[in-house]
């Protein structure tokens, strides 16, 4: 952790802001969902913000991200605007996919977000293809694929990891192990250790405290550098936790305890990072408060924008089945 203390201030503040963006937006998602303004399904990443912020701080705009159903944070951290995201969540034509995709199917190639998929594990083969294209193009970039603990038991996970390893592709696999796949705890479903699952394919694995953004930053910087040097994939398992249930409608007390939730909340990545920034004189309390206010204002403004935006006209219903 020695180098991380020398991490430039602006990088650290940027990660802080990214975590806040994710936190405030997904808190807003829970609120809007409960009011019936967001329909269907959405999966908040509350509690997991350090993973997206820490990994993506290492990426340039030209590096790419493939995400999953719990992907609002990945997109926001990569640069998708709050407006584009909230409009999409409300199904408006100003959304990043014109309202056609919703929470779980999003894309913004200008920001390097290839696709968030709702199929658990489905992003892994896609990320392999993206990495294949990067390698064929001889580009100096990499792709990061985010998925959860549930995905590690899919066939797609194993097929994708093997393929990435045998072709030495520039992809970093990041597992956000939040301990549960819907209601199923990893202790009941997942044999062995997730971060060791790549070893069978010659893929180095790293277990990381996903509640510490600097730990995530450090581990992913090593993996991303490896990928960009052409040395192939890495599997990073970030131990983290989601404060909501699988969706925004409950907090999962059917299968876990309040005591467990509180235990993880005491390790919340945001206040602990604030304390670190202040104690190391990297920022003042007022400065951090200023960032908080700014992010909250942007989220509120984005909600207004999304609510006042129009839905896509119904006559456009069949417009995007075929590409021209």
């Amino acid at each position, binding site marked *: 952790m020695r180098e991380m203390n020398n991490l430039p201030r602006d990088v650290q503040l940027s990660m802080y802001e990214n975590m806040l963006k994710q936190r405030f937006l997904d808190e807003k998602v829970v609120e809007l969902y409960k009011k019936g303004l967001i329909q269907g399904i959405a999966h908040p990443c509350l509690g997991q913000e350090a993973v997206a912020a820490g990994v993506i701080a290492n990426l340039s705009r030209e590096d790419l991200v493939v995400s999953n159903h719990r992907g609002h944070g990945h997109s926001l951290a990569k640069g998708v605007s709050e407006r584009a995201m909230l409009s999409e969540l409300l199904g408006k034509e100003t959304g990043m*996919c014109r309202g056609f995709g919703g929470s779980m199917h999003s894309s913004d190639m200008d920001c390097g977000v290839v696709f968030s*998929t709702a199929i658990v594990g489905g992003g892994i*083969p896609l990320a*392999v293809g993206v990495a294949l294209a990067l390698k064929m193009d001889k580009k100096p970039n990499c792709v990061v694929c985010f998925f959860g603990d549930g995905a590690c038991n899919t066939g*797609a996970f194993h097929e994708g990891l093997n*393929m990435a390893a045998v072709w030495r592709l520039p992809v970093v696999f990041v597992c956000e192990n939040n301990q549960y796949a819907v209601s199923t705890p990893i202790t009941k479903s997942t044999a062995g250790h997730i971060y060791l699952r790549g070893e069978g394919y010659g893929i180095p694995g790293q277990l990381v405290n996903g509640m510490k953004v600097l730990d995530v930053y450090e581990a992913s910087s090593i993996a991303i550098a490896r990928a960009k040097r052409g040395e192939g994939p890495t599997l990073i398992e970030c131990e983290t936790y989601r404060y909501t249930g699988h969706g925004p409608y409950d907090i999962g007390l059917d299968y876990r305890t309040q005591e467990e939730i509180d235990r993880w909340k005491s390790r919340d990545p945001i206040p602990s990072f604030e304390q670190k920034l202040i104690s190391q004189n990297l920022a003042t309390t007022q400065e951090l408060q200023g960032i908080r206010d700014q992010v909250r204002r942007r989220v509120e403004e984005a909600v207004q924008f999304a609510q006042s935006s129009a839905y896509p006209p119904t006559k456009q219903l069949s417009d995007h*089945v075929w*590409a021209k």
Partner: protein
Amino acid sequence: MESIREALAEEMRRDPKVFVIGEDVGQYGGTFKATKGLVQEFGPERVIDSPLSENAIIGAATGAAIMGYRPVAEIMYMDFLNECSDQLINHLSKLHFMTGGKLKVPVVIRTQYSLGRNTGAQHSQFFPAFLMNTPGIMVAVPSTPADAKGLLKTAIRGSNPVLFVESAVLYASKGEVPEGEFLIHFGKADVKLEGSDVTVVAVSRMVKEAIAAANVLSSEGISIEVIDPRTLIPLDMETIVSSVKKTGRLVTAEDCVKTAGVGAEVIARTMELAMGHIEDVQRVASPDVPAPFSPPLQDAYMPGKNAIVETVKKMMRRSLTS
């Protein structure tokens, strides 16, 4: 088979973004030799031998297509398409739509069905109707070398996912192929044989069977019009309807299982579009049974010339008595 190889080579020469990916497609040339010679000309970076991971093959092809490439993936047997259902149906076919038209995924998936080769139930099935029921993927079913070449070139140059289903039994068949560049538009059926009494819409291997049936029937004074749709999505109903308006009778002929097969859709659409003009409809198809192995069972299982002849004759007899 040569026509498919020619189409691949021509398109790979024309566009450096076109690449082939699949199992055993490189040095081995593909299980059916469709890619023979390609790795020698284009190198292993453009003719990629893949691990045995159909779902990942299609997923990787999709990811590469998002990045601007034009992959032509080979799935060895149509039955194995079930291995990649998730990437094919949940991702490839819907990505353009889910992203509000932003992402394009020009992936061509070449596959073949082996009904007729005694390969058994897991290596014989022809089920393009499954894909007709999921919007977002075009389906081509060529029956001649010329159609195969023209359709494959069009598929590769297009902007949409295409499932290109070849009949393995037809690989050895011969036919005239035009010299030089030629493309065949999707959604354009071909009247393989003109006739006046019954419209026969035949798919893939059944096109030849229908033409053979036409020869038998003409000696009995019955004239059938054989239409080869060539693509099932998009489906050229204009040609089919205009034929049915002429004949008043429709027979569909396919290697699919009858229930919910291609014929079911063709007949439903024809009824919707030409209700007052149709007197009789029948489907010739495999029975609702998996493909048996034992050769005489397989032969009895497969629809063919005789089934078409019998169906048409019965139809004409019904016509006479009504």
